[in-house]
Structure formats: structure tokens, C-alpha cells
């Protein structure tokens, strides 16, 4: 940790989570200085360690997974067997130590393990505990299992992506999980701040489904107000033209949108087609919407002779909205992202150098950092339970012989 005091220095977090929705909350807190302990067991390691590629050199292994690595940097990893009394005992000590407990198991799993909020609050009245699951802790479908990739369909996102005359489209990975983790992080931080001021704890029930709906709240309100259903419409906007992605000479795509006649005037100049500005087919936004296809052809002809980055810079210089469509590889050399040091390379114990995502925000006085690559399974058992929780060497060995760390 750097010498600068971080915003969340001294904040203690225990994470009984796996995959994305729980661990991503912990990652965001760890980036700004919280001590985050990720709890797994040897018999049930985090599914992101084992179930999904990429793996180092294409070979699966508990510590070789990129999926786990990307959501767990800057944390400590411990193993506890929660089917073993000794393991549960240590889990309770961990909860007693924590300011924040994050869990994203199915409802009631934590209670069955005797680690639910009712138990946690007795151990630690100030604890802020968040439970994040597909449907929330209550309701007729509370116990429905589900993957975030499919929940993104239930919450409307897949149906809102694609052409009106084609099928819905997949979004990459468990899209909605990261909406839920973002909203969840906001909720635990609010709870933490209240705890720091008043000593009061909090129980946060976060449904990933409901979190996702906050990202389409305007369309839902529109439906309730007018009965109008927002439907997928490729890249078009109901009130704007052009508003699309256009292919470029270098194989990349370029997004352009014009939100005023002035902007379209500038675009027409850059296209070398100033006459479009007076063409009745394109002179107003209504005309451009009505002739959007013809307009797309004209812009597409131009873009096909351009490189995306240079074209975007030229358009932006004339105050026209434009950006190259970055592929994932492009994100690693986008000049603005480089400036913000979004990717920070750290040494991973099994994978080697690995790029870790920093944060979408910078703080002026307490800048945060990626303090280390994701930990190996159980790497911090001794540090966490002896240094942080105060077990003696003898006690630690005793727990070990009881199988607590399996």
C-alpha cells in the first residue's frame, strides 16, 4: 500500500461471494483501500476460478483463471470449510471483525450455515451486510436460480438489442451482474458511512433484477404513462439522424451522431458534400430521419475511405459527435484510457503479469490503486487469521488440524 492514506483505509470487508455479483463489489472497495477478505473453500472454490476461460496457457487450474483474476485483485483470499464447525467458527470471527459482509449466494444459504444477518448482527451490531441474488430475498420466485447472462433477458436488455425484424441479441457475459454490483457498492458505502457516524448496522437486500431495471427506468415509466413499448431498433435514435456505426477502411467501425442542424452542416462539409445541407431530403432532422437509409449510404461511402481514429478526430475538431468503435483490444491503447491509467499491470502468482482494471473514477486526494493481482486460493489464511484476527500460532494449527481451512 502506498504512503498516501486511502479513502477506505481501515475498512474491513468479508466476502462470502463467488462469480461476479458479490466479488465485484469487494473489488471496488479494495481499489480505494479497504481490506477485503474473499472466502472460499477447497471443496467449493469460486466458480470463476474453474468454470470459464480464459486460463493461463489454455490449461484450467485453480489459480490460472482470468475470470477470477479480473474481479479479485487487491484482495486477500482465505479458505474456510463452512460445513465444518471449526470453519464456521472462524467465519463468525471474521464477521465479528468486519465492517461489511458481502454475500451473493441463493437466499437462506447463509442462514442455513448459521451466518445469516440475524447471527451476524448479534456478533457485530454495526455490521453492514449485503445479500445480492437474482430475484431478491423475498417474493414468489426468490429461490429461482439463475445466471446473469439470462437475467439480462428477463430484465429487458437482450430484447432491447438488435433489429426490430430479427431476434434479440446476447450481451457479453453476465451484463446485469455489474449493474447490481455497482448499485450494491453504493448501498454498502452508504451503510458504512452511517455506521461510522452512528454505530448502526444495516441489512441490504439487493435484487439483481431490480438493479438492472434502474438502467431502463425511463422506458418503464413511458410504458406506464403512455402504453408505448420501447423496442429494439438497431443503432437508431427516435429523434436523431445520423446515429449509427459506419465501416471504415482500416476494418474498424466509426460511430457518428448529429444532434443539431449545425452539427449536420459540419458533417456535410467534412464529407465533401456541402450541398446536402440544402438538400430537402436532409435539411431538417425530420427529413434526415425519413431518409436515414440514403443518408447512411452516403456516410458509409465516405467512411469506407477513412481510418476510424483519424476520421473521429477530424469530426470532433468540427464539433461533430463521433468515436471509433473500440474492440476489447483497442481499450488497451485508447489514448484517453491510457491517460487515466485504467489498466494496471501486476504480478500474479500463477499467471504472471496481468492487466487489472483500476476504476472509472479518480479521487483527487485519496487516489486508490490496484495493490496486487488476485490472490491464489487460500493464499492469505495465515495472514488473515493470525495477523488480522489475532489467532496464536497454536490456535491456528489447531484449527488446521480440525480441517477448518479445507
Amino acid at each position, binding site marked *: 500500500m502506498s504512503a498516501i492514506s486511502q479513502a477506505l483505509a481501515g475498512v474491513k470487508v468479508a466476502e462470502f461471494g463467488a462469480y461476479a455479483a458479490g466479488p465485484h463489489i469487494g473489488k471496488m472497495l479494495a481499489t480505494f483501500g479497504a481490506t477485503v477478505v474473499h472466502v472460499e473453500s477447497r471443496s467449493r472454490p469460486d466458480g*470463476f476460478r474453474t*468454470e470459464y476461460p*480464459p*486460463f*493461463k496457457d489454455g490449461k484450467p487450474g485453480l489459480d490460472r483463471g482470468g*475470470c477470477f483474476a479480473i474481479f479479485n485483485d487487491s484482495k486477500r483470499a482465505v479458505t474456510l470449510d463452512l460445513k465444518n464447525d471449526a470453519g464456521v467458527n472462524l467465519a463468525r470471527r471474521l464477521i465479528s471483525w468486519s465492517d461489511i459482509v458481502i454475500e451473493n449466494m441463493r437466499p437462506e444459504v447463509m442462514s442455513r450455515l448459521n451466518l445469516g444477518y440475524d447471527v451476524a448482527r448479534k456478533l457485530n451490531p454495526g455490521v453492514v451486510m449485503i445479500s445480492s441474488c437474482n430475484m431478491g*430475498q423475498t417474493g*414468489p420466485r426468490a*429461490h*429461482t*436460480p*439463475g*445466471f446473469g447472462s*439470462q437475467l439480462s*433477458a428477463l*430484465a*429487458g436488455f*437482450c430484447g*432491447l438489442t438488435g433489429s426490430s425484424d*430479427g*431476434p434479440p*441479441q*446476447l450481451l*457479453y*457475459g453476465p451484463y446485469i*451482474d455489474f449493474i447490481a454490483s*455497482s448499485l450494491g457498492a*453504493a448501498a454498502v458505502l*452508504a451503510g458504512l458511512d452511517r455506521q*461510522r457516524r452512528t454505530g448502526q448496522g444495516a*441489512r*441490504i437486500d439487493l435484487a439483481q*433484477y*431490480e438493479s438492472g431495471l*434502474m*438502467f431502463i427506468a*425511463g*422506458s418503464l*415509466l413511458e410504458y*406506464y*404513462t403512455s402504453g408505448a*413499448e*420501447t423496442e429494439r431498433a438497431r443503432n437508431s435514435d427516435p429523434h436523431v439522424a445520423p446515429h449509427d456505426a459506419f465501416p471504415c477502411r482500416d476494418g474498424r*467501425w466509426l460511430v457518428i*451522431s448529429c444532434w443539431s442542424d449545425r452539427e449536420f452542416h459540419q458533417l456535410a462539409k467534412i464529407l465533401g458534400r456541402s450541398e446536402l445541407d440544402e438538400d430537402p431530403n436532409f435539411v431538417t432532422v425530420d427529413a434526415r430521419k425519413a431518409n436515414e437509409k440514403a443518408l447512411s449510404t452516403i456516410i458509409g461511402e465516405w467512411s469506407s475511405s477513412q481510418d476510424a481514429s483519424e476520421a473521429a478526430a477530424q469530426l470532433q475538431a468540427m464539433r461533430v*459527435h463521433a*468515436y*471509433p*468503435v473500440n474492440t476489447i*483490444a483497442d481499450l488497451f491503447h485508447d489514448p*484517453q484510457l491510457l*491517460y*487515466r491509467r485504467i489498466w494496471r499491470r501486476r504480478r500474479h502468482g500463477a499467471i504472471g503479469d*496481468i492487466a487489472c482494471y483500476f*476504476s*472509472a473514477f*479518480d*479521487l*483527487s486526494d*485519496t487516489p486508490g490503486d490496484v495493490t496486487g493481482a488476485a490472490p491464489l486460493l487460500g493464499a492469505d489464511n495465515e495472514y488473515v487469521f493470525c495477523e488480522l484476527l489475532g489467532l496464536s500460532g497454536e490456535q491456528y494449527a489447531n484449527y488446521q488440524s480440525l480441517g477448518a481451512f479445507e
Partner: protein
Amino acid sequence: MLSAYRVLDVSNRVGWLAGRLLADLGADVIRIEAPDVNIENSDWQAYHVNKRLLRLDLHMPDGQATFDRLLASIDVLIESVQPGDAIAQHLDWNRLRTANPRLIQVSVTPFGSKGPRAGWGATDIELMAAGGAMSLAGEPDGAPMRVTVPQSYGWAGAQAAIGALTALVHRTANGVGQHVDVSAQAAVILASSHAAAFWDMEGINPTRCGAYLTGRSIKGARYRAFWPCADGYLNFMVYGGPAGRRTNTQLMEWMRERGAPLGVLERIDWIRFDPKLATQEEVDALEEPIAQFFLTLTKREFLDEASRREMLGYPVSTMADIASDPQLSARDFWQDVVRPDGSLQRHCGSFAVIDGVRAPLRHAPGEEVDVATLLAELGIGCTERQFA
């Protein structure tokens, strides 16, 4: 949880969600709009419910003077100033922090407030392009696509709320505010999950895969993700592993109960079934009877029965499906507010249930507060000297 705090929101569309989230968590959020700004559209209303509205023109000296008087008593300011904006000087961080050292100023802009492209203009489609999300949606051989409803503003606003609260926790401990600089472009990267790891570790550049999932079979087979049903589409995958096993065997049982022809499915041992080893011919053959069965189901039937059987898969919801989902009404997710004209308006309620309660929405969108009332609430006397 945040009822001790007051927030001023002068952001543009990219930051609106931030104030809404802080309001849902209990903060008193005051939205400032110039007198002539029209607020009668669904997006404005949905993201400004739970805030109060103060009509103030920050481009006029009067408006600026009032803003400065309010400043001393607020905890968080959310703005979207880009370099060169007319209001930039007035909202300059060094000026504001001198006036109120406890202030947390959150800048939510397309690319962040500094850097080579900080001054570039961007709306949702440029941000979804810049953050990589568009490259991952659409048909593999077609154009990259955005989600039709703007998402980048959600990603940015959520990160802005996290930034504000991280700074607030620090201020509670240390007494000083700070500047939070949010990049919507960087926030959108979160939508691409672990895709970056493929490029970083293997040099594989992930691409869009349309309505099918590829890369699961070593023989190159693609698996259908979206299935037409009686009244729309279902999202269902033939998975392997323990989760897939339960789903697949439950589906077989369900099809048998309904007398649906199983075809080649009869012969598949789901305990041994491994999607990694299937050829496209095999996948097509096993998907055929499933496709026929799904055509006989409505979305709601599928949702209820799949849930009862603890199967993986969900319908592809429309707005109407979401609005009528009993799970959401059972959890009091929808909340009605009374608009200034007396009519009822239905909104997504506060986003989380805290200590067993979903906090009611306190203010209809556009509920106005005037300057005098606000100053009185803040305990700021009319004679108080303004700072420079």
C-alpha cells in the same frame, strides 16, 4: 442512510442516475434546472423522482450568486462540466473547495475532466463505442450495436454515486472533501465483464456473437440462445455441468408431461452430455424438438414453470412483461407518486430493500422548492455575506 446529507445535482444526462441513487439511499437531493428547461419526458422524470427541483439559471449572475450561497451548506455537488463550457469557471474545483473545504464535487463527463479527449463530445452511442460494449453486441458479420435504451449514462451515474460515497466515507473520518472525476467511457468497460482477460492473457480479441453462443464446442458448434415461443422469445441454453444437467432433465420431464415429441432427446444421457464435444449436426438435432416445444409455450408459462422446476432460462421480457411480473409487485418494487397536477405516476422504487424496508419515494419529479424556502431550510440568512 444518507438523510444527514444534501446534494446539488447540476449534471447533464450522463450523471442523472447518480443523484437518483443517492436520493434512494436517503440523501436530500436538489436538482437545478434553468427556468426554460422542459422536464416533461420520461427519462427526466424517471431519473429525477425522489429529488426536488430548484429553477435557477447558472448562466446568469443572480443564479450564480444563489448557487454560491447554497454551496456552503451542501455536501455533494454533481456536475458534468467539460473543458470550455460556459459554466466551467464558476464550478472550478479550486474555487469551490476554497469556499467549502468539506465539499465533495463529482464531475461526471464522457471521458473525465482531463486528458487528450476530455473535450470530445459524446452521447450514449459514442460512449458505448468508446468503452468497448458495442463491439460485443450484434451479429458476428454485421455492424456493432448498442442497447436501444441508453446504458452508458447508467454505468457512469452508478460509478459517480460510488465515487461520491467513497469520498464521503473518507470525509466522515477526516473532515475534508475532494474531487471525484468520473469517466463514462471507463465506466462502460464494466459492461464487458471479463472480456479484457482474453486479450490480455491469450491475445484473443472477443467479438459479438449475435443470437447464438459460440466457443463452447471444440468442434465449432454454435448453440442457440433465443428461441421463438408462442408470444415472443425465450432465452435458454443447452448447458452441460451440474446446472445444465438439472435443467435438461427437468425439461425432458416437462416435455413428457405435455406429450411433446422428444425425438433424439430420448437417447441423450444428460449426466454424460458434454456441450464441448458436440458437432453442429448433433446440436441442431437436439435443439429441434426443444424449439418445437417452446413454440407451444407463452413467456409467462415458461417463467413460472421453469422457476418451479429450478431450471435455468428466462423469457426475453418486453416492458409490458416487466410491468406485470408478480415477483416485482410482491416486493413493492413499483411505487406511485402524486404529480404536481394531482395525477399518479408509477416509478421504479428505491433500488434496494434496507433493514426490511423499501424506502418510499419522497418527491414526485418536478416537485419545486423555491430559493427562499431552501435557504431557510439550510439556515442561511438573507443578510449573510456572499463570498467572492
